[in-house]
C-alpha cells in the first residue's frame, strides 16, 4: 500500500474525485466504442501510423481544441472564484494549481499545437510540395506533443498538479517549497513536448527552404509561409534554452543539484532569466503565424494583393532578431540596476516598431480593397483594434520605471491576454474557418460563425479591460481572494461576466461545427473563397499526394495569376509519385516516452531505465530500417484525378 500512496492527491476535493470518475468513464467509453464499431484497425492504419502532413495537421487541431476546453474550464473556475470578494469556491491551493495549469495548457498545449496544426496542413500545400521534408519526424513531433499533453493532464488526478505558476520561478519551484510531485510534471511534460516542437522547427525550415515549387523564390512565397519560416527559425534558437533550463530544474528536483537553489552556490534568479530567454521569443513564436494568417485572410477578402510585401518580410526578420534582445523586461524588478533596465526598455520599445509596420500594412491593404466581410475577415477586423490596445499597454509595461507599478498586477494580466487572445486565438479561429473547407470539404456556417466572433470579441473586452483598472488600483495577480474593502469586487464581477460571454462564444463554435457537419452543402468546389494562393489549387478533399503535377509559380499569388492573368500552373503530364510509407514507431516511441516521463516524475528508477532502453531500441530500429517508401502509379493518379472531377490546369 505504501507504494501507491505516492500517487494520491495531496489536497483532494469532491471536484477532483468527480473528475477521476469522469476520466475513467470517458476512457472506458472510447475503448468500448472503438471495439463495438470495430474501428481499431481503421484508427491504427489511417491515423496512428500516418505520416501525411494533412492528417497530422488535423490531429494537432483536434488536440488543440480539446486543450482549449481544458484551459477554458480552468479560466471559468478562476473567474468564478474571484467574482465576489471573500469567495470560498476554491481554496488557495486549488487556485494555485488552476492558474498554473491554465497558463501551461493554453500556451504550450493549446496555442502551440494550434499554430503547428495550421502550419502542417497549409505550408506544404502553399509551396506546392507533396509533404514536409521529414514526414516520419513530423509524426514523431506530433506524438511526443500528444503524450506530453496527456502526461501533464493526468497530474490533477494522479499525484497533484504543479502550483508554482506557469513561469515556475525558483526557489518556490524547488523541493523545499514545492515538495509534492506537481512541479516534476511541469519539468518533464514540457520537456517532452518541447522536443517535439524543436523537431517541428527543423522539419519546417528544411521543408520551406528545400521543397518549394519551381519558380517560387523566397520573395515569392505566400506570407503565411514566410511567417512559418521565421517562426520556426525562432523555435530552433529559443527552445534549446528551455530544454536546458528544464533539464537543470529537473536535476535540482530529482537529483539534488543546486543550479537554482539559494544556497551552495546556486542562483535562483538564473531560472527566471533562462525561462524568459525562451519565453519572450516564445510569444513571438505564437504571434508570427497569426500575423501570417491575417495577411492571407485580409488580402483574400480585401480582394487585392498584400500592401508592402517586402516591408512585411523585413519586419518579421527584424522581429525574429529583436525578440531575443528584450527578455529582461519580464523581471525589471529583480534588482538589476537602472542601467541594465534602460537597455532592455529601449530594445522593448524598438520591437513595437516592426509590429506597428505590419498593422499599417494591413490597414493600407484594406484601404483600396473591395472588402467582403466573411467570418475570417471579421476576426481580422476585430483583431486590429483589440491587439493594438494590448500592444500599447505592452509599451507601457516596457518602461522599466513605470513597470515597478504595473508588475505582477492585473494590469499585466490584461496586457498579455489582450495581445494573445486577438493575436493568437482570433487568428487561429480565422484560419480554422478559412481553411476548414480545404480540410473537410464543406464550409462552416457563416451566420453562427459571425455570432461567435462577436461574442468572443465582446467577451474578451468585458473580461479583460476591467483588469487594467483593478490592476492600477493594486490588485495583484495570482491572489485567490480579496476583501470587500479593496473595492475590486465590481471589476472582478465584470470580468466574470465577460468570461461567461467568451464561454458562450466558444460553445457556439462547437455548435457550428456540429451544425455545419450535418447541414452544410458539400458542393463547394475547390476554391470557395475565391482565394489567391496555391493551397486552393488542389482538389477538395486534398488527395494524399497533394498535387498530381508539380505546379510552376511566378509570383506569391500563383492561383490568382492563373485565374486572372492566364498563367499556367500545371504543365506536363503525370509522373509516378514517390510517397513515404506509414510507420507505427513514432506512436510507440512516444508512448514509451510517456511511461519514461511518468517514471521520472515519481522517481520509479527501474521503470525509468527500462523505458529509456525502449526509447533507444526505437532509435536503433529506425537507424537500421530499410524503408524506400512506395510509388503511386500513373494509372492510379489518373483514376483519382478523374474521380475528383478531372485534372486541373
Amino acid at each position, binding site marked *: 500500500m505504501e507504494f501507491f500512496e505516492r500517487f494520491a492527491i495531496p489536497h483532494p476535493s469532491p471536484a477532483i474525485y468527480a473528475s477521476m470518475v469522469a476520466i475513467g468513464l470517458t476512457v472506458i467509453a472510447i475503448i468500448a466504442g472503438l471495439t463495438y464499431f470495430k474501428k481499431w484497425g481503421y484508427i491504427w492504419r489511417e491515423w496512428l501510423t500516418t505520416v501525411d502532413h494533412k492528417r497530422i495537421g488535423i490531429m494537432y487541431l483536434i488536440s488543440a481544441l480539446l486543450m482549449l476546453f481544458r484551459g477554458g474550464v480552468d479560466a471559468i473556475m478562476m473567474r468564478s472564484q474571484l467574482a465576489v470578494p471573500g469567495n470560498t469556491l476554491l481554496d488557495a491551493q486549488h487556485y494555485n494549481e488552476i492558474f498554473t495549469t491554465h497558463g501551461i495548457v493554453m500556451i504550450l498545449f493549446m496555442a502551440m499545437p494550434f499554430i503547428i496544426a495550421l502550419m502542417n496542413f497549409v505550408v506544404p500545400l502553399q509551396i506546392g510540395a507533396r509533404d514536409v521534408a521529414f514526414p516520419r519526424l513530423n509524426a514523431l513531433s506530433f506524438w511526443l506533443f500528444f503524450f506530453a499533453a496527456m502526461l501533464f493532464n493526468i497530474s490533477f488526478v494522479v499525484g497533484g498538479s504543479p502550483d508554482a505558476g506557469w513561469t515556475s520561478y525558483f526557489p518556490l519551484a524547488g523541493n523545499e517549497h514545492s515538495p509534492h510531485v506537481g512541479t516534476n510534471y511541469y519539468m518533464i511534460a514540457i520537456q517532452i513536448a518541447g522536443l517535439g516542437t524543436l523537431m517541428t522547427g527543423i522539419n519546417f525550415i528544411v521543408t520551406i*527552404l528545400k521543397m518549394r515549387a519551381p519558380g517560387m523564390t523566397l520573395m515569392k512565397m505566400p506570407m503565411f509561409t514566410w511567417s512559418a519560416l521565421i517562426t520556426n*527559425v525562432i523555435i530552433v*534558437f529559443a527552445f534549446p*534554452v528551455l530544454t536546458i533550463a528544464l533539464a537543470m530544474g529537473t536535476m535540482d528536483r530529482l537529483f539534488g543539484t543546486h543550479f537554482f537553489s539559494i544556497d551552495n552556490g546556486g*542562483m535562483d*534568479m*538564473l531560472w527566471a*532569466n*533562462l525561462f524568459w*530567454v525562451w519565453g519572450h521569443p516564445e510569444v513571438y513564436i505564437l504571434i508570427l503565424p497569426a500575423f501570417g494568417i491575417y495577411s492571407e485572410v485580409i488580402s483574400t477578402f480585401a480582394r487585392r494583393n498584400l500592401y508592402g510585401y517586402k516591408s512585411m518580410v523585413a519586419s518579421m526578420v527584424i522581429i525574429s*532578431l529583436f525578440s*531575443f*534582445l528584450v*527578455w*529582461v523586461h519580464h523581471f525589471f524588478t529583480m*534588482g*538589476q*540596476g537602472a*542601467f*541594465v533596465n534602460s*537597455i*532592455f526598455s529601449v530594445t522593448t520599445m524598438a520591437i513595437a516598431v516592426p509590429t506597428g509596420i505590419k498593422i499599417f500594412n494591413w490597414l493600407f491593404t484594406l484601404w483600396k480593397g473591395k472588402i467582403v466581410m466573411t467570418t475570417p475577415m471579421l476576426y481580422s477586423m476585430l483583431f486590429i483594434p483589440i491587439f493594438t490596445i494590448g500592444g500599447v499597454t505592452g509599451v507601457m509595461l516596457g518602461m522599466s520605471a513605470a513597470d515597478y507599478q504595473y508588475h505582477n498586477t492585473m494590469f499585466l494580466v490584461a496586457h498579455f491576454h489582450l495581445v494573445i487572445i486577438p493575436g493568437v486565438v482570433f487568428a487561429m479561429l480565422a484560419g480554422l474557418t478559412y481553411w476548414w473547407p480545404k480540410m473537410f470539404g464543406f464550409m462552416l456556417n457563416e451566420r453562427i460563425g459571425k455570432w461567435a466572433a462577436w461574442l468572443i470579441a465582446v467577451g474578451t473586452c468585458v473580461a479583460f479591460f476591467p483588469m487594467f483598472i483593478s490592476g492600477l488600483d493594486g490588485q495583484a495577480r495570482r491572489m485567490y481572494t480579496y476583501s470587500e474593502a479593496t473595492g475590486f469586487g465590481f471589476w472582478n464581477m465584470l470580468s466574470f461576466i465577460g468570461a461567461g460571454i467568451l464561454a458562450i462564444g466558444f460553445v457556439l463554435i462547437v455548435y457550428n461545427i456540429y451544425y455545419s457537419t450535418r447541414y452544410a452543402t458539400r458542393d463547394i468546389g475547390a476554391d470557395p473563397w475565391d482565394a489567391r494562393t496555391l493551397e486552393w489549387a488542389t482538389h477538395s478533399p486534398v488527395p494524399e499526394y497533394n498535387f498530381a503535377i508539380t505546379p510552376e509559380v511566378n509570383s506569391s499569388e500563383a492561383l490568382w495569376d492563373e485565374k486572372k492573368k492566364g498563367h499556367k500552373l500545371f504543365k506536363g503530364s503525370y509522373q509516378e509519385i514517390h510517397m513515404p510509407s506509414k510507420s507505427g514507431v513514432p506512436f510507440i516511441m512516444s508512448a514509451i516516452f510517456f511511461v519514461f516521463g511518468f517514471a521520472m516524475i515519481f522517481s520509479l528508477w527501474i521503470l525509468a531505465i527500462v523505458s529509456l532502453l525502449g526509447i533507444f531500441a526505437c532509435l536503433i530500429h529506425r537507424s537500421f530500417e530499410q524503408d524506400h517508401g512506395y510509388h503511386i502509379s500513373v494509372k492510379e493518379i489518373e483514376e483519382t484525378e478523374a474521380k475528383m472531377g478531372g485534372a486541373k490546369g
Partner: protein
Amino acid sequence: MKELFPRKQVMGFIFSLVLTVAALLVYFLDLSFALGMTVLLVTAFLQAGLQLVVFMHAGESEDKATIYTNVYYGLIIALVTIFGTLLAMIWGMV
C-alpha cells in the same frame, strides 16, 4: 593515390586532438582563472568551427550560404544570450 588520401580530414583530426589536449591541460596545470577560461573558450570555439567545416562539410554543398547564415545567426543569439545574462545577473546587479 594522393587524391584518395583524405589529407584535410586527417589534419583536421590531429588538430582537433591537439585542441582537446590543450583544453585538458587547464585542469592539470595551475593556471589563473582568467587564463584558464580564455584557453577553454578559444579552444571550444575553434573545435566547434573545425567540426562544422571539416567533418560536417558545412561549406561543401549548394546550401553553403544557408548553412553559414544559420551558424552565424545561432552564434549571434548565443553571444547575446550569454552576455545579456552576465549583464543582468552579475555585472548589472546593484
